[in-house]
C-alpha cells in the first residue's frame, strides 16, 4: 500500500507534466497542475500517517521511505499545492507570457517531481543526481520570462550550483572509497551502509569527505559564502517559483547535509562536524542580517531571509540533541509555508505596483486591506514573532543549543534575530505607512492569489497556536533516529 501510493504520487505528477505539454491550453494546464498538487498533498498526508517510524525499503534497495524524508516531502507537497494555487492568478497577470503558460506548468510539475524524488532516494549517489536534476528543472522556471535579468540569474544559478554540487559528488565518492577498505572494492551504496562503515574508516578521510559534502550541498542550501546564486534566482523567478525554491528545494538540499551528519554520528569527528555546521549557519545568519538591513528590493529581502532561516536550521541540526533537531524540523515546515506567503505577497504587490523596489510600494493597506493585512502577518511570522509557528521552531532550537557544545551560537543568534526583526519590519513599515505612492496600484487580485496567501498564513498561525502532541512525538522519533536523545 505504501509503495502503491508512492507510485501513484510519482505517476500523477509525471502525467500532469506530460498533459500540460500536450494540451497547450494554459487554462487547462493550470487546473491539471493544481489537481496533481492536491493529490500529491493528500497522498503525502496519508503516507505520513501509515509509514512505520522505522521506515520501509522498496524497489530493490533504491528507495527508502522514512520519517525524515517524509517530513521534507510534506514541506514540498504543501508548498507545491500553495504555489500551484497562487500561480493560477499570478501567472495570468503576466500578460506577455500567457501563450507559453502550459510550458510553465509542465516544467513546474517536473520540478516538483524531482523534489519528491530526492527525499526517498536510498542511494547517496542517486540522491545527488536528484538534487542536480532539481537545479536544471528550476533554472528553466527562473528563466521563464526571458529578460536579461532572469537569464543572468538562471545562468549564475546553474553554474554556481553545479560547481558546488560537484564537490558534493566528490565527497560522496570519497565516502564510498572509505568503505572499500572494509567492504571490498564493490558494494551497494546506501545511507545505512555509509553509516555502518563510517566508524571503521579513517577519521581524517571521513571528515574531509564530510566537509566536501557540507560545502557542496551547502551551496544548494544557500549557506554563506556559497549563497551568491540564491538572491538572484529567488528574486528573478516568478513568485510561485521563488516559493518552491525557498520552501521546498532548500529543504531537500539540507536533507543531504543532515543525512551525512547522521552517518558521522558514531565517529570521533561527529562533534567537529556539528561545530562546522553551526559555524556555517552562524556566518549565514550574520551575512543575511546585514543584507536584510540594507536591502532595497522586495523579493531580494525575502531571499536573504531564506538564507537567514536556512542558517538557523543548519545551526539547529548542528546543535543536535532532541530539542535542536526537533526545533530545526519544526522550523523547516513553518519556514516553508510562511516564506511561501511572503513570496506570494511580494510577487502580487510587485505586479500591482509595477515595481521591484521597496521604495516603489507605499500605503499597501489603503489599496489592499485584506491582502495587505495577510502579507504583513506573514512578514511578522517570518521574523519569528509569536504567535506564529517559526517562533516555536526557533525557541526550541535555541533551547537545544543551550544544551550543546556550541552555546556561543545561541547568544549570536539571539542578537542577530533582533537585528533581522528590526531590519525586516522597518522595510515593511515604509511600505505600509510611507507617503502615498506616485502611481496608483492596479487592485485586481485574482481570488487564487488571496486564497494561497490566506491558507499559508492560517497554516503558520495554526502551527504557532498549537503544536500537536502527535507532531511532537513524530519529530522526537526522527531526532532519536538521528542519534540525538
Amino acid at each position, binding site marked *: 500500500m505504501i509503495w502503491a501510493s508512492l507510485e501513484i504520487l510519482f505517476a500523477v505528477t509525471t502525467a500532469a507534466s506530460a498533459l500540460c505539454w500536450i494540451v497547450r491550453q494554459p487554462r487547462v494546464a493550470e487546473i491539471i497542475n493544481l489537481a496533481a498538487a492536491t493529490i500529491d498533498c493528500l497522498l503525502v498526508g496519508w503516507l505520513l500517517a501509515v509509514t512505520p517510524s522505522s521506515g520501509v525499503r522498496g524497489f530493490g534497495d533504491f528507495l527508502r521511505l522514512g520519517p525524515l524524508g517524509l517530513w521534507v516531502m510534506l514541506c514540498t507537497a504543501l508548498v507545491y499545492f500553495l504555489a500551484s494555487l497562487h500561480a493560477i492568478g499570478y501567472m495570468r497577470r503576466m500578460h506577455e507570457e500567457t501563450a507559453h503558460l502550459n510550458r510553465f506548468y509542465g516544467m513546474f510539475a517536473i520540478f516538483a517531481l524531482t523534489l519528491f524524488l530526492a527525499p526517498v532516494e536510498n542511494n547517496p*549517489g*542517486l540522491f545527488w*543526481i536528484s538534487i*542536480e*536534476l532539481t537545479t*536544471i528543472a528550476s*533554472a*528553466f522556471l527562473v*528563466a521563464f520570462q*526571458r*529578460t*536579461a*535579468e532572469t*537569464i*543572468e*540569474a*538562471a*545562468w*549564475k544559478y*546553474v*553554474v554556481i550550483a*553545479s*560547481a558546488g554540487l*560537484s564537490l558534493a*559528488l*566528490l565527497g560522496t*565518492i570519497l565516502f*564510498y*572509497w*572509505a568503505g*572499500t*577498505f572494509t567492504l*571490498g*572494492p*564493490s*558494494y*551497494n*551504496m546506501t545511507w545505512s551502509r555509509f553509516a555502518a562503515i563510517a566508524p571503521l574508516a*579513517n577519521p*581524517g*578521510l571521513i571528515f*574531509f569527505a564530510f566537509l566536501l559534502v557540507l560545502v557542496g550541498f551547502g551551496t544548494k542550501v544557500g549557506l554563506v559564502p556559497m549563497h551568491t546564486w540564491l*538572491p*538572484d534566482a529567488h*528574486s*528573478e523567478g516568478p513568485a510561485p517559483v521563488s516559493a518552491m525554491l525557498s520552501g521546498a528545494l532548500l529543504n531537500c538540499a539540507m536533507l543531504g547535509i543532515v543525512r551525512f551528519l547522521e552517518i558521522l554520528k558514531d565517529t570521533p569527528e561527529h562533534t567537529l562536524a556539528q561545530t562546522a555546521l553551526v559555524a556555517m549557519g552562524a556566518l549565514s545568519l550574520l551575512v543575511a542580517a546585514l*543584507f536584510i538591513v*540594507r*536591502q*532595497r*528590493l522586495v523579493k*531580494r529581502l525575502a531571499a536573504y531571509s531564506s538564507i537567514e532561516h536556512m542558517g538557523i536550521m543548519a545551526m539547529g541540526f548542528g546543535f543536535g540533541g532532541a530539542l535542536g533537531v526537533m526545533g530545526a524540523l519544526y522550523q523547516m515546515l513553518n519556514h516553508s509555508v510562511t516564506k511561501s506567503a511572503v513570496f506570494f505577497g511580494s510577487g502580487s504587490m510587485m505586479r500591482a505596483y509595477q515595481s521591484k523596489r521597496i521604495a516603489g510600494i507605499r500605503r499597501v493597506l489603503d489599496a489592499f486591506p485584506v491582502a495587505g493585512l495577510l502579507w504583513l502577518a506573514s512578514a511578522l511570522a517570518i521574523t519569528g514573532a509569536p504567535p506564529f509557528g517559526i517562533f516555536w521552531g526557533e525557541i526550541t532550537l535555541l533551547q537545544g543549543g543551550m544544551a550543546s557544545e556550541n552555546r556561543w551560537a545561541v547568544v549570536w543568534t539571539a542578537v542577530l534575530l533582533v537585528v533581522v526583526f528590526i531590519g525586516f519590519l522597518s522595510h515593511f513599515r515604509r511600505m505600509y505607512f510611507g507617503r502615498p505612492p506616485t502611481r496608483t496600484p492596479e487592485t485586481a487580485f485574482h481570488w487564487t492569489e488571496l486564497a494561497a496567501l490566506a491558507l499559508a498564513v492560517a497554516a503558520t498561525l495554526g502551527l504557532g497556536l498549537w503544536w500537536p502532541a502527535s507532531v511532537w512525538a513524530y519529530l522526537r522519533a526522527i531526532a532519536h533516529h538521528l542519534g540525538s536523545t
Partner: protein
Amino acid sequence: MPTPSLTGLTQAILDLIAMCALLLTFVMLGSHWIRNHILAFAAQSWVLAVLSAFIGFSGHYPALLVIAGLTLLLRGLVLPHLLVRILDRAHLNREFAPVLQPAMSVAMGALCVLLAYGAALRLGQTVDGQSPVTRIGLTSLLAVVLIGFLMLILRREAVSHLLGLLVIENGIFLGSLILMPGLPLLLEFVVVFDLLLIVVALGMFVRHLRAEIGSTDSRALDRLVG
C-alpha cells in the same frame, strides 16, 4: 582498491595514462582558443576511456569495459559535438579578455598540482600507508578538480565556464576510476546523463544570453547585485 597488487608495468602504465589526462588540462589552461579546449576535453575523455578499459582488463572489472565504451561515446563524442555546436551558434572562437596571460594560468595550474600532490601525500599516508596507486589517484583527482575550478575563476566566456564544469567532472571520474574501480556502473551512467542535461540547458542559456544581453562575457552579468 585498498590493497593493490599491481606489477611494476601495470603501475607504470597507470601512472602514464593519469599523467596524460592531467597534461591535457594544461593544454586547456594554456590556450585561449575555445575550440582547442573542446578538443583537449575530448582527448582527455578518450584517455579516460582507455584508462577504464585498461583497469577493466588488468583488474578484472567487466563493468569498466562498458564504462569505457560509454565514456568514449558520450564524453568523447557527444559532449564535444554539443559544445562545438554551442560555439558555432554563438559565433565564438576565443577567450577575448582573459584575466591572466596563458603563461600565468599555467603557472597557477602547476601550483594547483603541487597543492594536490601535498594533500594526496598526507591523506594517502593516513588512509593507506604508502600505496602508489592511492597517491597517483588522489593527486590526479585533486589536481584536475582544482584546475577545473581555476578555469571557472580565470575565464570570462560562458562556454569556458561550461568546460570548467566538465573538467571538474572528468577529474572526479579519473580519480574514482583509479581509487575505486568497483564503483557501481549505475552511478557513472547517471552522472554522464546528467552532464548531457546540464550541457543542453546551459547551451540554451548561452543562446538567450546572446539574445538578451548581447554578450556571453560573464562581466556583462552585473545587473543583479546587493
